């Protein structure tokens, strides 16, 4: 009996799915600009709201968006959470702040980190500004902004 191996009830089979992402017209424009350190979105001709990043359409009105709008790298924390558990496959060490950030001149928040501040001091409505990575690291990604940091006096 002691020679009988324990029955195998499960095995781990890691799966890797690699794919090519087609950005489309609107996001291509955003990514081309963010590589130069600029942030562009699009205004919906129906509701006048500005989306960053742009998706080429407004999900509220169901119509295409074309008008390009450049915005600043500063805004407010619409809301946030302090994440205390690690994100699977992500090296960020908890606790960290994940925030819905509403850039000035835009109408839908985008998800990013808030750092360079005691987590307990982050609050709804706090003014924040982008902390860009060093220029030589810029690529076609919103991650050119490492995180957002509080604006002095906020």
């Amino acid at each position, binding site marked *: 009996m002691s020679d009988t191996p324990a029955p195998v009830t*499960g095995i781990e089979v890691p*799966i890797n799915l690699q794919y090519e*992402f087609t*950005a489309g017209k609107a*996001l291509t424009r955003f*990514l081309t600009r963010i590589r130069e350190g600029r942030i562009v979105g699009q205004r*919906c001709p129906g*509701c006048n*709201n*500005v*989306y960053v*990043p742009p998706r080429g359409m*407004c*999900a*509220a009105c169901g119509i295409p968006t074309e008008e390009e709008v450049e915005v600043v790298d500063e805004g407010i924390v*619409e*809301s*946030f*959470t*302090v*994440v*205390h*558990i690690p*994100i*699977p*496959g*992500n090296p*960020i060490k908890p606790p960290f702040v*994940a*925030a*819905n950030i509403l850039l000035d001149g835009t*109408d*839908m928040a*985008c*998800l*990013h*980190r808030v750092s360079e501040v005691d987590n307990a001091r982050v609050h*709804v409505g706090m003014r924040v500004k982008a902390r860009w990575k060093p220029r030589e690291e810029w690529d*076609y*990604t*919103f*991650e050119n*902004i490492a995180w957002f940091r509080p604006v002095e006096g906020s």
Partner: protein
Amino acid sequence: MRQAAERALEDAGCTWKDIDALILGKAPDMFEGVVMPELYLSDALGANGKPVLRVHTAGSVGGSTAVVAANYVQSGAFRRVLTVSFEKQSESNATWALSPRMPFVPHVNAGAGGFFAPYMRLYMERYGVPEHIGCLVAVKDRQNALKNPYAHLQIPDISLEMVMQSPMLWEPIRFLESCPSSDGACALVLADEEHASRSPNPPAWILGTSTRADGSMYAGKDNIHPASLIACAKDVYAKAGITDPRRQIDVAELYVPFSWYEPMYLETLGFCGEGEGWKLVESGATALGGDLPINASGGVLSSNPIGASGMLRFGEAALQVRGMAGQHQVEGARLALGHAFGGAHSYYAMWAVSADKP
């Protein structure tokens, strides 16, 4: 799943021979890494040769699957259907599936809790809600679970202090304010009037069903009182003749995976005004002995086999009006509400069931 299906058949006095179709639901395939399980599950269930349809609406799927099944019977296409939903989280990791690195954006998406937590904070800030309200919901649902042998979490010494001292996961959500990862299934037999009238146990009569979907992200979306849920409730109330939900509905099973959704949903579903939901919670109205018991079964906070969680709400509502809810029975329940939500406040499904034939 097979156990759930067989017990539902037994309860309805049926065998598979009597069932015209199988309507199946589960959460997205990535949650378990098994693609299109419905293709072999009809065989595993003993339903070979029956028409099979799978419904996909993320976490609300258990509810919308029951609605699809009800629609089929209502249309006359099938006279008796078995609808079943499930999840097996012990062999999977839903948080992993909900936290993938997306192209060109920062990898800050931290599972379902990470997405929903900022909206709970907004709710608290907008209405000045005290922090312990979420904990009260967590205690109440776990106390109810102790009366439900099918509930996954059984915490006999649950207390406000225990919940408040449990670790923060995604502020303001604590560990004990979150749903567990569960294995489980739920099955219902839905039948037309003639067959239901001959049921060996008292049936629950479906007064109305409704589903609504909405975009995940757009400018101006209200994630505290989502427009799609307001519309879903309005539709199901109109169909069921409900004009005063607080007075007319005896018990409701709401999809509350994180404690803060109870007060938010009480408001969105019209049980009280905006900003008043937390006061209902605090008053004890939503406890098993209150005048509006919510999640007498222990709810999603006590069992979360994701795909089945919505159908469990619908099934528990039915058990209440059938008088078959055992120890967590709400005395004299005649009209009950089942509710499910899914995605990024993207999908809603509801039904109202009654002990009385309309």
